[in-house]
């Protein structure tokens, strides 16, 4: 096996006295699709936020592509090659669809204030480049025909696709998807699964949090299970399906839910 | 001995001005807790209160009546302001709401110019204003009125928010909006009440300062800004801390003015504001934060 693309070692986050994520280790190889699952409040989003630099970890390390990125700022992590989507959508509502994705190309371009202001040579070329990349990203998620619409008028499902197009515009090595299926109808979900599979064939890797078990079992190469901030299991979908700890954790929550 | 009396003198004037800032600062805290907006018109309620009281007194109305009437009118103005400017924009972005309160602030200021002109006016002291000698320092009865009235008002606020039904409803909204709604409390009205009450507090502040330093149409800006500093020192959501902040600013100002320079007085208060914002965004007393209203 080659070196893993993403490696998380002993990652821990404490908010005051509450430990949200505790000593989590896992890795992701190039070209893999890994799912992180667990009951609500298990610490999945906190884990994502630490990997993407939104929250600094209390302890532990994150390695990406052979380099340590622990505690880097989100924009630095994006430059290193990890982008993400958001559970509660974060499209730029003050822009058109294509501009959203062109903003995603940001790291691959160089134009600064002065070059842009004076419209020096190269700006036009970069604009064309950003536009072409963005257009092809939109085509891949199937909403190229909406390129010139205002992003805010897009229906929910299309905004999700837009976020994926934007996250893939900088050709990152790894995309983190935070509950990508939430709020999608079955048809949209299938469409999204196809897109993810196709992108993986192009060499992109995915780490995602998801509650929809059908999707998780269907597309993951491996699954990491988290409960109360701790990793309780890791393995292929088949292994996880039969893991007793996992079943207990999930049944446990169901009981709690019923109690409420 | 000379030094001691000057020291006491400066403490007196610091407490006097601090009590004014405290009233306005509490208004900020109440409004901020309920609406999430810093009301830039808060200081102008003080100006409006002062100007109205001066007008009523100059019409030979008994002072007590004039004062109460002025406070009542300002409370009404606060309520109208909330219904016409804040409520219709309640779903707008925060910067928009901030600019709206600024717009109201300058509208009130302009209105004051139209009615009262630009000349400074003053209100007679509430009682005979013969200086009292305390350890060689001079204390004016109006200062005692200022500190006393503001303390009484603050205690009344405490009572209102913790003991009365409406007050408790407002407090409940701060803690949990949706739970409050389930209890049959309409959060929309809480915004109305909080701004009206804050306007009244502002009016009281303006009326008690008017006999000491006079009143002009533009006095609201500085009072408002200083009270902002006080509220921010207190962490913006914590009423008791804001009161402490207000007295700190008052004393800091009187000492700067008395011992060094009056010119840089404002710069020093605002430098303190920036320092607190940059380094202690949750206020000086972040750890000790107690109740929110």
């Amino acid at each position: 096996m080659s070196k893993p693309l993403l490696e998380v070692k002993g990652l821990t986050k404490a908010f005051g006295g509450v430990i949200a994520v505790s000593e989590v280790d896992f890795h992701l190889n190039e070209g893999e699709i890994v799912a992180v699952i667990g009951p609500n409040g298990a610490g999945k989003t906190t884990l994502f936020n630490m990997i993407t630099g939104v929250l600094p970890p209390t302890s532990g390390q994150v390695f990406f592509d052979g380099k340590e990125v622990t505690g880097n700022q989100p924009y630095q992590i994006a430059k290193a090659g990890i982008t993400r989507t958001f559970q509660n959508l974060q499209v730029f509502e003050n822009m058109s669809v294509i501009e959203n994705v062109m903003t995603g190309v940001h790291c691959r371009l160089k134009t600064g204030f002065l070059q842009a202001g004076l419209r020096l040579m190269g700006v036009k070329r970069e604009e064309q480049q950003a536009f072409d990349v963005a257009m092809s990203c939109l085509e891949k998620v199937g909403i190229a025909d909406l390129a010139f619409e205002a992003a805010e008028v897009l229906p929910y499902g299309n905004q999700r696709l837009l976020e994926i197009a934007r996250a893939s515009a900088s050709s990152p090595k790894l995309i983190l998807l935070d509950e990508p299926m939430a709020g999608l109808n079955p048809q949209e979900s299938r469409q999204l699964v196809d897109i993810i599979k196709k992108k993986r064939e192009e060499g992109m890797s995915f780490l995602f949090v998801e509650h929809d078990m059908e999707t998780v079992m269907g597309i993951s190469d491996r699954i990491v299970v988290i409960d109360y901030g701790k990793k309780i299991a890791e393995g292929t979908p088949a292994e996880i399906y039969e893991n007793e700890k996992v079943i207990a954790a999930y049944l446990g929550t169901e009981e709690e839910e019923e109690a409420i | 001995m000379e030094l001691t009396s000057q020291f006491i003198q400066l403490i007196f004037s610091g407490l006097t001005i601090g009590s004014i800032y405290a009233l306005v600062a509490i208004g900020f805290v109440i409004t901020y807790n309920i609406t999430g907006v810093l009301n830039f018109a808060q200081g102008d309620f003080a100006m409006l209160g002062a100007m109205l009281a001066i007008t009523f007194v100059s019409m030979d109305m008994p002072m007590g009546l004039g004062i109460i009437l002025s406070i009542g009118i300002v409370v009404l103005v606060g309520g109208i302001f909330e219904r016409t400017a804040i409520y219709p924009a309640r779903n707008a972005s925060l910067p928009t709401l901030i600019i709206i309160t600024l717009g109201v602030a300058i509208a009130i200021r302009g209105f004051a110019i139209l009615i009262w002109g630009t000349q400074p006016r003053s209100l007679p002291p509430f009682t005979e204003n013969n200086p009292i000698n305390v350890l060689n320092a001079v204390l004016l009865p109006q200062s005692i009125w200022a500190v006393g009235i503001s303390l009484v008002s603050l205690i009344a606020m405490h009572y209102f928010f913790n003991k009365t039904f409406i007050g408790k409803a407002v407090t409940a909204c701060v803690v949990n909006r949706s739970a409050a709604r389930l209890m049959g409390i309409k959060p929309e009205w809480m915004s109305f009440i909080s701004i009206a009450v804050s306007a009244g507090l502002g009016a009281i502040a303006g009326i008690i300062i008017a006999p000491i330093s006079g009143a002009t149409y533009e006095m609201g800006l500085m009072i408002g800004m200083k009270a902002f500093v006080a509220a921010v020192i207190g962490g913006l959501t914590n009423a008791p801390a804001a009161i402490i902040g207000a007295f700190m600013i008052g004393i800091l100002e009187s000492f700067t003015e008395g011992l060094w320079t009056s010119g840089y007085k404002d710069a020093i208060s605002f430098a303190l504001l920036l320092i607190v914002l940059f380094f202690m965004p949750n206020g000086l007393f972040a750890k000790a934060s107690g109740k929110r209203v």
Partner: protein
Amino acid sequence: MNHSKVSELYNRHYGGLFLFIAALVIVPFVANSFLLSVLILVGLYGIVTTGLTMLMGYAGQISLGHAAFYGIGAYASAVMTGTYGMPGIVGILVGVAFAGTVAVLIGIPTLKLKENYLALATLGFGIIIFTFFKELKEITGGLNGFFGIPSFNLFGFAFDTDLKFYFLIWALLIVGILFSKNIIDSRVGRALRSIHGSDVAANSIGVNIQQYKLKVFVLSAVYASVAGSLYAHYVTFINPNLFTAMESITFLIMVVIGGSANIWGGMIGAIVYVLLNELLKEVVPMFFPNVGGEFQIVFFGILLVAILIYMPQGLAPTLGKVWRRLAGRKNKKAAVTGPPNADATVGGSKS
């Protein structure tokens, strides 16, 4: 219709602009001297508000302290040319350097703050700078003001009449707007707007938001400083009361009236504000004979609130529609907001 070229994205046709410039050239020859002086004021304000529009409308960062940068430019030019007899350009450059440095120093900590706190911090900063104008009496003349600022002189050419000054200011304003427009229609502009749209998402795709906020803050400070320098040369007398918090708020009013999400909004706001201001000064005393001072602010306060509630995009989009109808342009970009050459972006395609 099939959009497939990047040229479809931003409206970069200059037909409207040429017409506008033609009008600007003709106006001073038909205007009287009063109108000319009013238009010079519009141009000066327009330079400030264009910079402020970049900061507020596009990057979404509020500032209640830009009068400070306007004042820094004015005093830098006053002192350099008035006290030390330096050429006008030196005054402008010193002002730009000073304002830029102050913007960096104050911007680094301030721009980490959000909304309420950012508004407060910039307001406080403005008042601190105002206090320095007032108290550094040996340099600024304090409240008595600074007299005898010479007229602006560029490489031997003196802008000593209102007509010459008019062309200088408006040429600079148009250049300033085009420079800003070029920035907006590029990677940098999208980065700025992405901060406004969602700073979390902007950060997650590689936009260094602190750096972009700082750079646009400095840019807007530089615009304000240059305008301040030229203002000092134009009026030849300045005092600290020209650079109060109220002046900062006045800039803000212009930006909001014009439409903060439109690069022409700042200029439109300046035109509307100045003309309305002059009109009110004429009309109101007919009803309130004894009125004095800045009574007009009552109207601007109400106007500000009304626009934010009922027309949050400002006047620019409406004027843009009227313009396109007049120009008889094809309905190709019917939904696009904005006046001539304005952005084809914000809230576009809504209809």
